[in-house]
């Protein structure tokens, strides 16, 4: 392992790098808070049918726009009131976590696979391959991603799979750049040279020697990109080109609540806070992970 920190080693000569990471994680407040909050959101998404008081799609036109519990006429039956179709707002908020997390995670994962492969190839082979990689990255950076995504969603629809694929098109470049830079640094280090001298195939060097050493960096980027993907999904849905009604996406809920925001501001504020909480938690988790995985980079 090239990532171990000598000073930690000196203090705890018997601990493996993984044990050291766990020890540092326990002592890192930001990482713990981020991890706990993210885990709570995931739990909420998984257990949504158990915790949500109502079916998020059940309309009750007799109880439209019921006030939340803290306003006059509010009741604990609908703690956050109901929306313009009489659907329980709290239930929709809880189920919204599913869409955000699923789309955010898979978009970040697909783009991680694409970006890491591209960066690995460019960094390892250099020369023409690298020139090609940089050219592709430059083209990607030059395109107005959000507009292209909007156009693609409008043309190809917004099923779960198409949304994930279109969002991944927006996020693979940072993985490619980070992985390429690191691969260039590792390419001529002893562990790679040794593997090559021992007759390891290129595939083996890329996936068994280099990739494990890149994993921590990729995970850091993955968290940041997942957070971004969640915000962008919400934005697309807000613009009416993302998740379709009647599904409860937080971005869509903000857009639906918009016309009532003067007398029922919580219809807009609550989903926004839900997004904000999740995105901050994932960001803090990612920053914390970077500190833990590579404390020598910490400032």
């Amino acid at each position: 392992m090239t990532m171990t920190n000598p000073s930690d080693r000196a203090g705890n000569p018997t601990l493996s790098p993984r044990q050291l990471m766990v020890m540092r994680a326990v002592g890192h407040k930001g990482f713990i808070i981020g991890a706990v909050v993210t885990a709570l959101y995931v739990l909420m998404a998984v257990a949504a049918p158990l915790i949500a008081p109502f079916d998020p799609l059940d309309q009750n036109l007799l109880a439209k726009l019921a006030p939340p519990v803290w306003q006059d006429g509010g009741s604990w039956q609908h703690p956050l009131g109901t929306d313009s179709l009489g659907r329980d707002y709290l239930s929709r908020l809880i189920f919204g976590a599913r869409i955000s997390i699923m789309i955010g995670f898979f978009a970040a994962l697909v783009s991680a696979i694409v970006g890491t492969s591209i960066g690995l190839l460019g960094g390892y082979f250099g020369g023409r391959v690298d020139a090609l990689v940089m050219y592709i990255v430059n083209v990607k950076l030059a395109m107005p991603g959000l507009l292209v995504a909007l156009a693609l969603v409008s043309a190809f629809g917004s099923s779960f799979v198409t949304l994930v694929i279109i969002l991944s098109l927006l996020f693979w470049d940072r993985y490619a750049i980070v992985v390429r830079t690191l691969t260039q640094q590792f390419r001529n280090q002893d562990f790679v040279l040794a593997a090559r001298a021992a007759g390891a195939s290129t595939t083996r060097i890329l996936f068994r020697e280099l990739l494990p050493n890149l994993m921590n960096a990729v995970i850091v980027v993955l968290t940041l990109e997942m957070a971004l993907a969640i915000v962008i999904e919400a934005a697309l849905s807000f613009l009416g080109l993302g998740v379709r009604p009647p599904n409860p996406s937080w971005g869509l809920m903000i857009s639906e609540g918009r016309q009532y925001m003067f007398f029922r501001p919580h219809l807009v504020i609550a989903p926004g806070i839900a997004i904000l909480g999740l995105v901050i938690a994932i960001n803090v988790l990612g920053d914390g992970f970077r500190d833990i995985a590579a404390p020598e980079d910490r400032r």
Partner: protein
Amino acid sequence: MIRVILRRIPMALLVALTVSILGFALLRLSGDLVRELAGDTAGPEQLAQVARAYGLDKPLPIQYLNWLWDLLRGDFGTSLFTGEAVSSLIATRAGPTIILALASLVVAVVIGVPLGVLAAANPNTLTDRVIAVVAVFGQAVPNFWFGLVMLVIFAVKLKWLPVAGDDTAAHFVLPVITLALSIMPQFVRVTRSGVLDAMGADYIRTARSKGIPARRLFMRHALRNAILPVVSLSAVTLGFLLGGSVIVESVFSINGLGLLAYSSILSNDFPVVQAIVVIVSIVYVFLTLLSDVVNAWIDPRLRG
């Protein structure tokens, strides 16, 4: 300086050309332009006629070259719906977007860079942490939501600012704050790490040992080093804002390029969307080229 430009030009041209191909293909493949033009009721006879009239019966590569040739002469085609020339449509709508982008960039730099310097001057102190929290918030907050909340507070409740539109400077205050907040965190980060890198570098240690006052060291040497990534980031951000302001424009009803692109996407007005995508990309390529030149001017080492 000229060498820097010459070295970067082939890649820039190649990227611009590729973007034009992608922009063309993307929109051509995503819908049936002939049917769009002829209308749903048109029979096969009329469809063929329309295809011939617009040159759409030719193979795609020929169509692309025709389109590119028109583009190079400044002819972006006409809108399928209003019949207006796309170039004049874009010219009238670019103003608000450019104002919005430039103003947000200036605000983000003017606030973000000093915050980054402040954080770097006091690493791992309370100041540093507070600045980090502000940065995380700015990065995490969905800007359409933040815009709406500010709209309710400052325009509707307090009535300090107008609710929607782009007629006066006051109309731009909330949108600029919204956009600036979302791009500022990167400037804080880049400045902070740029200054910290410089402070740890050998030439700063040498200068310090020669007795150069800390203040001058900081302003003259460390800051100069941190400026380079800020210049690059500014170029990238400006390019991003020109194509990415659609959300804020829609929240604040600003009639800029973003809204034009958005409404054209919704109505399948291909020529307009195509032109905006290609123009924004080419401006981006130009801006990054410009930032490399500026950086080479600031730092002679980059001129090699």
